[in-house]
């Protein structure tokens, strides 16, 4: 039964639609992120010891799909290099960056806290521990997917643990969240140390690579594992965008508006674990992308998840493509760990955000 008084004509004109400036801003943001991502991807694919001009990179890409557009690479090994090394690596950067940024935005929505992020609260480390187990004990029960499956289980267990430990009365306070993250990261660090102790030299090297995070050695085969996981996670997140907005009101109001809060939260936690596992399983821990990216997007378009999630996806991909380009080219003949780079930038940013949150909340609320 609806009791609706017909709105008076006079008031209806002062309609507070989502401000038009904001809608316009979102469109501009999407277009510029899309363009930037394409340009950055082409540039990243063309850069390295063998330099290939942008036009030829694009040409090689189109020719592969039977489109006779643009010039082919002039260097004899150009085309092969692009398709066996560069493109899979750029593709991996796009997928991992998108997954991490969306996972971050999602986690912030679930915890109702802008500081929640897979690496901060230890979900990435949890996933890494499980994946390291697979390496040390040479598990191969699921073929190429073994690492991803283990990372997913590890990530899921950690997310659930953090969720249970860090929440009180339906919300998570900053202090509790950060301290829980410290505890979880400490335990995960200890387990990783134990696994390194148990493993042989090769396993040790692989685990170190994990902790540092790197896109080195990305292959199509791995992209084939990570991409579907990330795609599923991102699609589910996008479908949940409206309800995530309602969750910002708190548990009771969200329920009064028709959201089955308990079920919704558990589902989202599984999605966060899935996205984190997708990112971590072949590239290790790339920290802070999920913290920095959604925060910057929120500053531009506001907190509505219908814009925040897809924009974070694009921006996350862009950030990782650029960061990986930096990791490969900043120091000649060296492939820096990308996780190191993101932490170098993300760590101070996290601290700034922490101070700001403290100030606006009037204490460590």
């Amino acid at each position, binding site marked *: 039964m*609806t009791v609706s008084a017909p709105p008076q004509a006079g008031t209806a004109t002062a309609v507070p639609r989502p401000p038009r400036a904001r809608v316009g801003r979102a469109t501009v943001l999407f277009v510029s992120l899309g363009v930037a991502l394409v340009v950055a991807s082409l540039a990243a694919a063309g850069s390295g010891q063998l330099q290939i001009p942008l036009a030829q990179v694009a040409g090689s890409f189109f020719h592969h799909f039977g489109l006779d557009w643009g010039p082919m690479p002039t260097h004899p090994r150009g085309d092969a290099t692009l398709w066996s090394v560069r493109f899979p690596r750029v593709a991996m950067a796009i997928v991992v960056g998108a997954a991490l940024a969306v996972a971050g935005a999602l986690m912030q929505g679930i915890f109702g806290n802008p500081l929640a992020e897979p690496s901060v609260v230890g979900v990435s480390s949890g996933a890494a521990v499980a994946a390291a187990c697979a390496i040390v004990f040479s598990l191969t029960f699921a073929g190429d997917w073994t690492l991803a499956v283990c990372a997913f289980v590890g990530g899921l267990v950690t997310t659930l643990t953090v969720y249970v430990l860090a929440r009180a009365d339906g919300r998570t306070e900053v202090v509790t969240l950060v301290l829980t993250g410290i505890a979880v990261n400490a335990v995960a660090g200890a387990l990783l140390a134990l696994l390194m102790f148990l493993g042989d030299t090769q396993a040790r090297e692989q685990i170190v690579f994990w902790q540092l995070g790197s896109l080195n050695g990305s292959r199509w085969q791995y992209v084939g594992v990570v991409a579907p996981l990330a795609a599923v996670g991102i699609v589910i997140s996008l479908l949940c965008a*409206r309800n995530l907005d309602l969750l910002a009101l708190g548990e009771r*109001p969200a329920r009064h508006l028709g959201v089955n809060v308990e079920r919704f939260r558990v589902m989202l936690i599984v999605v966060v674990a899935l996205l984190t596992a997708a990112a971590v399983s072949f590239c290790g821990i790339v920290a802070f992308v999920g913290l920095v990216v959604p925060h910057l997007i929120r500053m531009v378009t506001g907190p509505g998840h219908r814009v925040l999630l897809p924009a974070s996806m694009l921006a996350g991909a862009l950030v990782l493509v650029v960061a990986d380009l930096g990791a490969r080219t900043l120091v000649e003949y060296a492939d820096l760990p990308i996780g190191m780079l993101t932490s170098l930038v993300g760590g101070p940013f996290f601290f700034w955000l922490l101070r700001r949150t403290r100030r606006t909340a009037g204490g460590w609320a």
Partner: protein
Amino acid sequence: MTSPALVGRGITVRYGSNPVLDGVDIDVRHGEVVALAGPNGAGKSTLLAVLAGDLDPTAGKVEVLRRPLADWRLRDLARERAVLTQEHRISFPFPVAEVVRMGRSPWRGRPEEDQDDAIVAESMAATDTTALADRSFGILSGGEKGRTSFARILAQRTGVLMLDEPTAALDIGHQETVLQRARREADAGAAVVVVLHDLSLAAAWSDRLVLLERGRVAGEGAPADVLTGPLLSSVYDYPIEVVPHPATGDLLVLADRRATRENTRDHIREEDA
């Protein structure tokens, strides 16, 4: 007489062995405003939480539109019933207009969705929040937050309204407009249950008043019947007078401070001596 829109029977809530609610019965019919009143800790908000389905009672049952609460799909229920909680907070800086628009979410994908803009605008105009549209909800004052939340509840366009202290932190003018609007919804057929601390407000705007005392119903009926000096003085454990306003005849519920003042004076005299 229409069938009650909201029925609670034998509602009992215990934390450990002490009962917060002890066998409370309540009916709210279409077209009436029922006020819940009582001292702090009498169980008003707990009763509202049980009626809203936020809290499972130790015993008793709740029916909304003759269907037990547990049988409702939350989304369907959200189109029939709106709840205003006491706390108004938000985790991210959503602007006021978007917060009010969230009230329309249960109607997503239905024909009523077409009226979203008009309904949001009307709800904001009714609560005097139109000017706040672009402000971030998080930085509003307590009263502005309360009005914005009330606008969100109105935007839900439901036939059952449950309001937990909608006038808290509001100035006297906005208190009146909020309750006037609740009254108007009831006159248009809605069933409204509202927790109120201010008994004069309850007397002015409700059809029926349920007075709770330590988890039990101490009095129920028309405000003029329930709001009597002796009953209130006993329930609130403080001398209380009820007098009609000389011009309007509205009931005024006032604390009788004579005894306390005497005591205070005695104290001062003793100390001086």
